[in-house]
């Protein structure tokens, strides 16, 4: 533990049974129109609202001892396997890393391959994918499977045969712009962003006709000259302003609004694009934000900028979880978001009005969020500059990274795969060069946060904004999380374990060793009356290499891999 940071740690501590009971009483069911039967897993987050929750309850605490591997499938590509499979009917669609190199349709009960699509994405994409060659899976609509590729293309496949129906270039990947996440489907529109905030891209979201691949609209997330928000950029820094959306968005079909998080502004060296001071006027819209858009027109309806003039690579990309909460007796169409900046936000997803924001991990750079303005209350001295090395919690890895949390309407809790990392960092001069990283932080050194643990699964009550329970993990970069109607929470760790814990207490009930770090999000589904749990294993390489000696203990635990594991109760 670094004592320099301990005095200013700020997190609610009310982890008690009372809060849990309050959460139970307050929670209401999530809108699940898109997946009413809830036997499959038809969206990245199971539902368009990204809850990563399933009501399936055949597997539960009192029988999980009988949960065993039903089958395993090699995905044919090593490192950074981050795919969240989909299950539609009796077919599972899952991707490998490296492009994806492969998209598979499998018999969801046996693992038998129905078809395999090979993307032929060139290996040189690795230069342009900052944080490894991961792919997070596909989207599905009406007999078509949609996949975004690291070479900047969006492809529609025939769900029955795997044959390409159309292929559209979204972005020039050689500028450092890659697609690693599945698109959002809103009616007949396929909406995608791309990564590249660390390469100085100018982010945009674009929508394509699901039947033809024709471009329908394109909305820049960094406003150009003459557009509202351009004045929030110093000089012409907007040209390489980042704000790229590389994590899956969410969709509320009732409100007809899509929600995408945006990345850090480019470069990290804030002095090039702002005054790099708390409350400065150059806030760099719409970086490190969530933007709410009309999916029919691409018009930005509202935004919340989580980290104005982001000097820490906090991004705002983490998923927006859409669920209805009851607060003070009133029903709230909520958007929940655990930001890399360490705060968990609850907002009205119809209007963008902030309801609450509290730190869910140790936070030293801000003491709170002004709910009226949305601006963080910054702690002086926490911005790195060319002459000042700042010691900040959380680090650029965030209080939570891209791995999705899960909201369980039964317990009323969100289960957050959190990180407890801090950083010592200083700015360095940087110039833009196409295809090279555009960062400007040197040096940066990560260290373990207060308490001596690096990862934490937190069961968080979004209404009271306090933890119900948490599990400390020695390693960071936990996997995505699944919670179920059976009262279980599943997650994985960087040392290769896939675990199930009791959703109410956090008690460890079951674990399975996958042989490589687990970063992907698990799913569950039912075929033929039998409930299955599935997860992809295969740890990142780049993220461990990036962090050098700090990450060595994690790198030494397992090797890279690419395997799908599927579990079911003994018959």
């Amino acid at each position: 533990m670094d004592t320099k940071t301990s005095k200013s740690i700020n997190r609610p501590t009310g982890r008690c049974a009372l809060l849990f009971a309050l959460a139970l009483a307050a929670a209401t069911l999530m809108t699940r129109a898109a997946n009413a039967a809830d036997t499959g897993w038809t969206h990245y987050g199971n539902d368009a609202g990204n809850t990563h929750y399933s009501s399936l309850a055949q597997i539960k605490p009192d029988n999980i001892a009988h949960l065993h591997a039903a089958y395993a499938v090699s995905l044919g590509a090593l490192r950074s396997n981050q795919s969240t499979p989909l299950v539609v009917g009796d077919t599972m669609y899952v991707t490998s890393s490296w492009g994806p190199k492969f998209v598979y349709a499998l018999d969801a009960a046996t693992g038998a391959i129905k078809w395999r699509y090979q993307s032929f994405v060139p290996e040189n994409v690795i230069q342009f994918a900052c944080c490894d060659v991961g792919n997070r899976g596909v989207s599905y609509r009406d007999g078509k499977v949609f996949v975004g590729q690291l070479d900047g293309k969006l492809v529609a496949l025939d769900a029955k045969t795997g044959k390409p129906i159309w292929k559209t270039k979204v972005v020039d990947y050689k500028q450092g712009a890659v697609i690693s996440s599945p698109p959002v489907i809103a009616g007949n529109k396929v909406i995608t962003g791309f990564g590249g905030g660390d390469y100085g891209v100018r982010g945009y979201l674009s929508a394509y006709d699901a039947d033809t691949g024709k471009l329908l609209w394109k909305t820049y997330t960094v406003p150009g000259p003459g557009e509202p928000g351009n004045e929030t950029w110093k000089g012409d820094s907007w040209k390489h302003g980042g704000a790229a959306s590389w994590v899956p968005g969410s969709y509320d079909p009732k409100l007809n609004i899509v929600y995408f998080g945006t990345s850090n502004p480019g470069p990290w060296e804030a002095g090039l694009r702002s005054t790099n001071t708390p409350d400065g006027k150059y806030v760099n819209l719409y970086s490190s934000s969530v933007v709410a858009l009309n999916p029919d027109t691409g018009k930005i309806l509202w935004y919340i900028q989580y980290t104005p003039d982001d000097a820490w690579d906090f991004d705002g990309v983490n998923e927006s979880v859409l669920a209805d909460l009851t607060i003070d007796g009133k029903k709230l169409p909520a958007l929940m978001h655990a930001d890399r900046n360490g705060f968990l936000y609850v907002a009205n997803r119809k209007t963008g009005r902030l309801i609450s924001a509290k730190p869910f991990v140790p936070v030293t750079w801000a003491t709170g969020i002004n709910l009226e303005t949305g601006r963080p209350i910054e702690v002086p001295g926490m911005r790195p500059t060319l002459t000042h090395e700042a010691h900040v919690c959380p680090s650029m890895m965030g209080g939570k990274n891209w791995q999705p949390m899960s909201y369980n309407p039964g317990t009323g809790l969100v289960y957050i795969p959190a990180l407890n990392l801090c950083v010592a960092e200083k700015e360095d001069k940087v110039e833009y060069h196409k295809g090279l990283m555009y960062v400007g932080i040197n040096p940066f050194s990560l260290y373990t946060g207060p308490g001596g643990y690096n990862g934490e699964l937190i069961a968080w009550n979004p209404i009271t904004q306090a933890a119900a329970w948490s599990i400390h993990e020695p390693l960071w970069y936990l996997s995505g999380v699944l919670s179920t109607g059976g009262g279980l929470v599943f997650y994985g760790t960087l040392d290769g374990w896939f675990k199930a814990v009791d959703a109410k207490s956090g008690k460890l009930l079951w674990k399975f060793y996958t042989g490589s770090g687990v970063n992907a999000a698990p799913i569950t589904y039912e075929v033929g009356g039998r409930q299955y749990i599935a997860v992809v294993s295969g740890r990142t390489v780049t993220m461990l290499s990036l962090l050098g000696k700090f990450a060595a203990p994690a790198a030494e635990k397992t090797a890279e891999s690419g395997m799908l594991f599927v579990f079911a109760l003994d018959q």
Partner: protein
Amino acid sequence: MMPRRLLLISLIFAGLAIFRIPATYAGADAKAADSHAIEQGRHLFNANCAHCHGEDAGAEDPYYNLPQLLSDKSDKDFTTAVTNGIPDKGMPPWKTILKPGQIGDLLVYLRSVEKEQGIDTGSQP
């Protein structure tokens, strides 16, 4: 017209000067110069290379572990790889961004890391 032999010698010395190969230094001056080059190289490394190869060349993975990757490579191999890149491996060309002297500083720094780690470099000019 310069005699061919003299031209060759001049080119060799010019090359050594540009790439700041440590063999060109001697005694206390050489140590000081090396020390300066190591520090310069470290700064350049962490600014430009650490995103893949880890802070202070600390990436453990064999794909990115430079001290090990370089151990059987000559100085010329290194300079060529940095200058022209290895696109299929994701290594961009740096010839328009880093000056030859800076690439030389990177080399001096990385050779010093090899030495620190007790790796038999087989450093060949």
